[in-house]
């Protein structure tokens, strides 16, 4: 039997969907016994959500005031302290998991498999390298603990209907005081979360200004989509960093991706190639985005996008 520990991501109110995707990955490990650990100030609410994920056997709550914010230097020694009885420790390949898991791996003196995209056997996995331009199959030593971050775009979220049991644990771990949370700034939005949205409308440098992104917001709101941006658009200041889709931004797998005024640099395509349907609108018919688009339309986005928004409403 393989005992898998998943480090759950949450904000105290809701479990991040990345956790349910890690569960699906864990289920693919042969004969897996799955536990989710939640660290926080008060994880009562999210523990209930975690226990309801199909396939989850146990949920371990580690509540203490120092865990109010997910600081890797604070969380890592606690995860490491729990590690002894598990064969595998997984976390999402999100900014939360990517920050935390390597610190856990180093404390345990083991390697990490980053961006795990497929499980071939209990200690054999596939992962992308070179911005997704090559896929490697890696094998880890079965006698050691396996630490991995899970590429969330590669896995569907686990269904609900689970009946895991919840237990609180007090860990006798001395935590460092050298790292302190100061604050966060996020463009609060009523639109769906970019990372997990079924539909995404994205804009590139051709939008020309932050003001013009409103065109995309109108279309997105009409179809209930999240809004993303290319790195070029973010670098130009048209959109905030959390909207960036691509190798160094978010890697997403929506049902529908509409790329508007995005040429399709390789690092952008890396972020969207798991999308079910890609639609591209660009004035340059030679743009690389058309090589991967299921539906392409060459033309002026400033005419096409308002018209498309109008037609969809009709």
């Amino acid at each position, binding site marked *: 039997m393989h005992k898998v520990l998943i480090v759950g991501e949450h904000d105290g109110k809701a479990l991040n969907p990345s956790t349910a995707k890690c569960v699906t990955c864990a289920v693919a490990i042969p004969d897996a016994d799955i536990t989710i650990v939640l660290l926080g100030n008060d994880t009562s609410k999210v523990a209930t959500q975690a226990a309801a994920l199909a396939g989850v056997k146990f949920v371990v709550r580690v509540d203490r005031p120092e865990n109010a914010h997910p600081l890797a*230097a604070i969380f890592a020694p606690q995860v490491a302290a729990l590690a002894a009885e598990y064969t595998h420790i997984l976390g999402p390949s999100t900014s939360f998991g990517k*920050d935390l898991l390597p610190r856990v791996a180093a404390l345990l003196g083991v390697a990490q498999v980053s961006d795990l995209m497929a499980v071939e056997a209990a200690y054999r996995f596939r992962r992308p390298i070179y911005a997704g331009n090559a896929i490697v199959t890696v094998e880890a030593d079965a006698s050691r603990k396996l630490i991995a971050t899970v590429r969330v775009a590669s896995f569907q979220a686990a269904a609900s209907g689970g009946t895991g049991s919840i237990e609180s644990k007090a860990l006798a771990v001395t935590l460092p005081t050298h*790292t302190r*949370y100061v604050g966060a*700034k996020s463009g609060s939005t009523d639109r769906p979360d970019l*990372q997990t949205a079924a539909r995404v409308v994205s804009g590139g440098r051709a939008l020309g200004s932050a003001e013009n992104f409103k065109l995309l917001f109108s279309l997105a709101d009409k179809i209930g989509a999240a809004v993303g941006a290319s790195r070029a658009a973010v670098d130009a200041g048209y959109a905030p960093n959390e909207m960036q889709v691509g190798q160094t931004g978010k890697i997403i797998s929506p049902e529908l991706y509409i790329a508007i005024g995005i040429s399709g640099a390789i690092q952008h395509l890396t972020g969207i190639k798991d999308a079910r349907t890609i639609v591209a609108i660009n004035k340059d018919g030679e743009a690389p985005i058309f090589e991967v688009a299921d539906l392409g339309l060459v033309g002026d986005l400033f005419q096409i996008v308002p018209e498309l928004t109008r037609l969809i409403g009709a």
Partner: protein
Amino acid sequence: MQKIMVCIKRVVDYNVRIRVKPDGSGVMLDGVKMSINPFDEIALEEALRIKERSGGIEVVAVSIGVADTQQQLRTALAMGADRAILVQTDSPVEPLTAARTFLALAKKESPDLILLGKQAIDDDANQTGQMLAALWERPQATYASKIEIAAGKASVTREVDAGLETIEVDLPAVITVDLRLNEPRYVKLPDIMKAKKKTLDVTSLDALGVSSATLLKTVKTEPPAQRQKGVMVKDVVELANLLKNKGLI
């Protein structure tokens, strides 16, 4: 603050379109242009800017790799690093090995700050900085888009999935940098000449007491699955109808 250590990796230049070897044993690296990992270049630029603001700081560029990695360290010296150290090895270096090696150098050099890229663009592991911070038992601030140093502390704005987060860490600390922290300077010819006179020490994993044993085995390397090119539509009416008919909107 007296010393900043910047960790640099030699990687395939980001403009090169890599190709997988037909036998699946890896990617083709023969005759391919190599450069400083772009994120590490941003880390070095930041170190130089901190030095230029405060003065009296030594910037030490360090790397692990084949003998030719001296080229990338010379570039780092030309950008403005004061001296460089190469830990020369022909073995593949996993992130944990890199972290152990940088730890050994940190113990020798006692820097106040270690800067490096958030990930290398070859293995995309995104691990070394975090592992180094853990082994060094010091704070980490990953994905930095703004760094302010004052009174033995660093205030770091981090690019996270939800937006921007600010944390404060005591120095010494490890900071890994993201794309939007700065734009690295161009190297000028006189600087390249000057860099030839700067110190570049070469040492080895053995000398530092670090094992080169690897924990992961790469069994196979394949090209990614390709998406099929789709169809072009003639106008926005056709596009809207197709999206509706396919049940996509």
